[in-house]
């Protein structure tokens, strides 16, 4: 599961972290789209050389390498499989390009998730006119994930102490053994939800249409710069790719 590392937020003080999450959203989507547009090796290398410095700027190189290491098995698998099954003229070259594309795609999105705190995400959604209740539900879900995890472990302990053997038996037995874990988990979660609702209601949740916010996100000049630059690059790439066509030297691949 270590490949998920690049999607985990950490508190850092970096140039990228300090950008508005909405600007980063635009940046990530632009970069991801750019990645998807190419199927040759060299363009992907160029794209990577552009994206990677941004990872460095967000002080997350170590996480990135850890993730890539975790992903390496999958990458090799894709490479081999595509080479064997591809009908392209130079299968290995094509597969290599696809593998690079996957790396670029994941790295693009990771830029967003590495540097955006769940609260900022929820605030960004709210300011983009998503209803408060939905945005808040997202951040509340994240808040309760560790709690739910602990609850599941506690339930497993309680049932094991009664003689339920969770790690024995064939597939059918193991599936049946999920019931004594899932049912209490659901019940406990429902009870918890009611309790949480009482607390929120007692603090006027949903009271007024014009809810205020302690910290609002505000676009600064650098955020506008990032957005404009991202859109510019995206447009440029679209133009070159679809209308003008890529120069020959970019389409050189490996002869196998």
């Amino acid at each position, binding site marked *: 599961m270590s490949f998920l590392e690049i999607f985990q937020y950490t508190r850092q003080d970096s140039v990228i972290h300090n950008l508005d999450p909405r600007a980063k959203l635009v940046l990530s989507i632009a970069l991801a789209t750019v990645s998807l547009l190419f199927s040759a090796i060299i363009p992907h290398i160029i794209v990577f050389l552009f994206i990677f410095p941004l990872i460095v700027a967000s002080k997350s190189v170590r996480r990135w390498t850890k993730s890539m290491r975790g992903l390496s098995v999958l990458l090799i698998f894709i490479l081999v499989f595509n080479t064997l099954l591809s009908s392209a003229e130079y299968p290995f070259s094509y597969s290599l390009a696809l593998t690079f594309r996957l790396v670029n795609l994941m790295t693009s999105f990771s830029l967003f998730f590495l540097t955006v705190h769940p609260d900022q995400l929820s605030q960004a959604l709210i300011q983009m006119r998503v209803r408060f209740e939905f945005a808040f539900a997202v951040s509340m879900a994240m808040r309760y994930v560790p709690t739910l995890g602990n609850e599941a472990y*506690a*339930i497993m*302990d309680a049932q094991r*102490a*009664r*003689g339920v053997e969770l790690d024995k038996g064939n597939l059918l037995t193991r599936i049946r053994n999920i019931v*004594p874990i899932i*049912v*209490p988990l659901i*019940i406990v979660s429902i009870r918890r939800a009611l309790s949480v609702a009482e607390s929120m209601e007692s603090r006027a949740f949903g009271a007024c249409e014009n809810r205020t916010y302690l910290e609002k996100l505000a676009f600064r000049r650098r955020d506008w710069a990032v957005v404009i630059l991202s859109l510019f690059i995206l447009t440029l790439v679209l133009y070159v790719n679809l209308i003008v066509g890529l120069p020959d030297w970019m389409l050189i691949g490996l002869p196998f």
Partner: protein
Amino acid sequence: MIMLENIHFTYEGIYTALRGVSLQIDSSELVAIMGSNGAGKTTLIKHINGLLRPQKGRVFLDDRNTSHMSVAEIAREVGLVFQNPDHQLFLDTVEKEVLFGLKKLGFSEDEANEKAQATLEKLGIIDLVERSPFSLSGGERKRVALASVLASQPRILALDEPTIGQDALQKRYLAELLMEMNSEGKTVIVVTHDIEFVIEHFPRTIAMADGRIIADGPTGSVLSNQEVLNICSLTSPQMTQAAQALGKLYSDISPRLTQLDELEYAIMQILGSGIQ
């Protein structure tokens, strides 16, 4: 007989919960384990029934090393009741809930039914047999969870924080039940913060702090030790406070008195004979 020999345990290689814990609990003992949050009390209990296995050290149940036994096997002899009954209840009737554990531990249908009946009657919840556990009150659910563990009549009974949220009558009832279990020969171990409950009913207390046992002995002396109380984030029991206050005024009142009867008697002595 339970024996823990120099147990060391670390969660996921990061958090050390037990640093060299050794203890011995004999049959039919009544022991309370106390300590502040994070002292390792619950971790300790989970080693007794095999839910956790030590990285160093050994756990013995009657001279058998538990490392060769599965949790299910140990469950036949050690019943562990957790704090939240909702972590256990999942079947549609109380009866099924109590029978579940019995069947898992290998009792025959007849034996299981017999034991279930007996336990439900003993705990006063026989009228609830057909009810769904989810529709019961908090106190009733606690009793159902307790019944399902007691039904198999384990020789050792361990309870994790059984008095939380209970009113005085419920605590009294629980205490009576535990004393009854004990008089039938069962070993009863309780992990708790409730110092009044311990001082009234448990002759032996083990105090823990920071993964170690810092005191182990008669409740009266362990819990009148101010340093132990401070380290374990406990407040002095009510009668100890009274005894200490009286002890300052009257030299023959020992500050180690812990029971209501003792204090009452002592005060009557003072007022009866008019000692100043």
